[in-house]
């Protein structure tokens, strides 16, 4: 089922050693996200979700196992401009305006920001920050900063999109709006998405499959398919079938 151009992790293990402490962050984690699929990872804090993502992005190297992004090594995929990323922490450059922050991936990929001005503006509008293009990160709220990070992740129209709790600092209403928007963008671009989240409902609403992880050592305990039709609409949040899936995931999450 692993299409060559999705995200494929096979038998990935990672142990952190430092200051006399050894943390087995990941043990034998395998994950296959077919091209164009939407996968959510959910798990308790510290179970290694961010580590999975950082390994898939090539920011961290696995001790063992293999990683393929769209059939290529993570760094190759990154250089080819295939990947997009939004971190748990907005990680904005404090001296750059909102617009110039959104342009960072373009600059890294040696694309001329002036050729993409319309997209940059569209992305900023999409996350509801029209009018704040020239503000500095220090002048924005936490949620606004995170929205800048989301716009930045989308600006390259990535084939493979990684998101680490991108909506963590947003209020519930905005979060649902962004969920709907994200689904729309993902469907439009046909990208492969990997979303790390703490929100079960968010995971179920967005994902084709929800990967549940447990901690110490970090490992995948179950992969749950989410069968609902697309496009999914906000009323789904109050559907009984939706709640049954959520409840099942909550059980697995709590070790049931």
């Amino acid at each position: 089922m692993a299409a060559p151009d999705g995200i494929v992790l096979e038998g990935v293990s990672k142990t952190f050693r430092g200051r006399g402490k050894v943390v087995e962050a990941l043990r034998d984690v395998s994950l296959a996200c077919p091209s164009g699929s939407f996968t959510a990872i959910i798990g308790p804090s510290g179970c290694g979700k961010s580590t999975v993502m950082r390994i898939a992005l090539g920011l961290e190297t696995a001790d063992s196992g293999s990683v393929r992004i769209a059939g290529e090594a993570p760094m190759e995929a990154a250089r080819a401009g295939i990947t997009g990323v939004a971190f748990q922490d907005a990680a904005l450059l404090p001296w750059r305006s909102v617009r110039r922050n959104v342009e960072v991936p373009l600059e890294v990929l040696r694309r001329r920001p002036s050729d993409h001005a319309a997209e940059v503006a569209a992305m900023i509008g999409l996350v509801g920050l029209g009018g704040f293009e020239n503000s500095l990160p220090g002048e924005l709220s936490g949620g606004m900063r995170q929205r800048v990070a989301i716009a930045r992740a989308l600006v390259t129209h990535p084939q493979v999109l990684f998101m680490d709790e991108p909506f963590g600092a947003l209020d519930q209403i905005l979060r649902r709006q962004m969920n709907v928007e994200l689904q729309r963008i993902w469907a439009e671009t046909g990208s492969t998405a990997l979303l790390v989240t703490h929100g079960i409902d968010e995971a179920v609403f967005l994902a084709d499959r929800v990967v549940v992880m447990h901690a110490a050592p970090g490992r995948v305990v179950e992969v749950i398919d989410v069968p609902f039709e697309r496009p999914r609409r906000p009323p789904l949040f109050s559907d009984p079938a939706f709640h049954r899936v959520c409840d099942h995931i909550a059980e697995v999450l709590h070790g049931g």
Partner: protein
Amino acid sequence: MAADRGSGWRGLRVAILILALWEVAGRFDLVAGGALPSVGEILVRLWQDRADYPLHVWATLYASAAGFVLGNLAGVAAGVVFALSTTALRIFRGVNIAIFALPPIAIAPILVLTLPGMAPRVALAALGVYFVTMTATVVGISQADSRAADLVRAYGGSRRDVLRLVEFRGALPVILAGLRIAAPNAVLGAILAEFGGGGRWGLGTYLLGSLGRGEPDRLWGIGVIATLIAGLSYAAFALLSRRFLGSARAVTLNTAVPAAQPDRGPLARRIVMSLATVALPFFLWWVFIKATGVPDLIAKTPAAVVDYLFFSPAAGAAQERLWAAMAQTLPITFLGMVAGLSFAFILAILSRLAPRAIEAFMPVALVTQTMPLVALTPLLVLILGRGTSLTLWVTISVTFFPAFVTLAQGIALVPRSAEELPRVYGASRWTEMRMVTIPASLPYLFAATRLTVPRALLGVMIAEWLATGRGLGNLLNQSRGYLDYAMIWTVAAVSVGLAVLFYQAVVMVERRVLGRLGMTTAE
């Protein structure tokens, strides 16, 4: 900004008050029997001497500016190279520490012996600038937000992209803060080199010429002018720095675990590297002598110094004189350093606790502390005499300034969110200080300590050279008078060696303490 204006007024008021007190004390010869002339008398004397100043000021200004530009270019370039290549950083560590630690006064005679014309002054000014700027560049780059760097790497950005997009711009405030220390340093370097002799013009030359004539008002006039030059150069870069710091402050605390990178290469490689690190400064010393082509009689290679100190017929006497000088110099150096550092730390902490009170005091502190030390020493001699307390005060004043700037800068970099957290729980300003500001500024306290080590030695040696007639500074000055070239080189080498040793001791303590706290060194 009503608050700004208020503190500005308060600063002005404090300044006027001090000037008024000074005027009164001067008029009635209240301090040290007339050693402190009144402001009016100094100004009158400045006016009378006005024909002398332009050429002296121009000579000093020219040498400082040339040294400043050259030193900064070298510093930034080297900083970037060192930030990119740990190997280069390691191999040049010995050279860097030596350049940093060398008390300029110790090598001023050497430079005058080996270089022509204005070159010794430019070189000494550049040396004073190089290290500050180089370190600031490396610190700034290595402290860059690792999350932002991750983002650039996640898009396949190369090391150079990270440098270009994240690190260099992030380093600018630190580099600018470095420049404001570097600028007065350049002036100090230029004046110190004038001290070593050579040339008719320059404020240092003027000062030395006037020192013997017992004219306090002229000495003070020269001091005021030298301070003005150094102070203005500081102010210019402080202003620039403030403009940048506002927007470049990180908004959240960077929690990423810093990558410690001890050399994990094979043992043989590590040994070769260590040897290269130690040998490189000596090698460059040797190259310098060969390159300048100065005769062996005057220029001593490392081998010649070793020969003089251990194998020549004069070795015994030389050692004895050296030991005696060191025994006089070292204790007072240590004492002055500790005092200057404590003063700086307390003031930096207070500047966060009671910003307004300190703001009013700041202009005064800055003026006295940017004062080039050489200009300060004769004045202190007039007031304090030629005893030990003079040495101590000179040392404190020369260590305090750089330490304070480093600490204040470090404390200003503590992220807002981290400081506000305790406040949310109703913590007092002091608790906030204790829980966040002081621990977060610990790396800067160590950085400040490293910065003050050689300066303390410099302060002591200047006081010894100019006034007290004791210790290493005096030995150097004497040897200069007797044309005892071997001793000049020996004292220079030993002073630098001592400073390096001190410095390394601080580094070791720092590594241990910060390592335990999981913090990184502000390298």
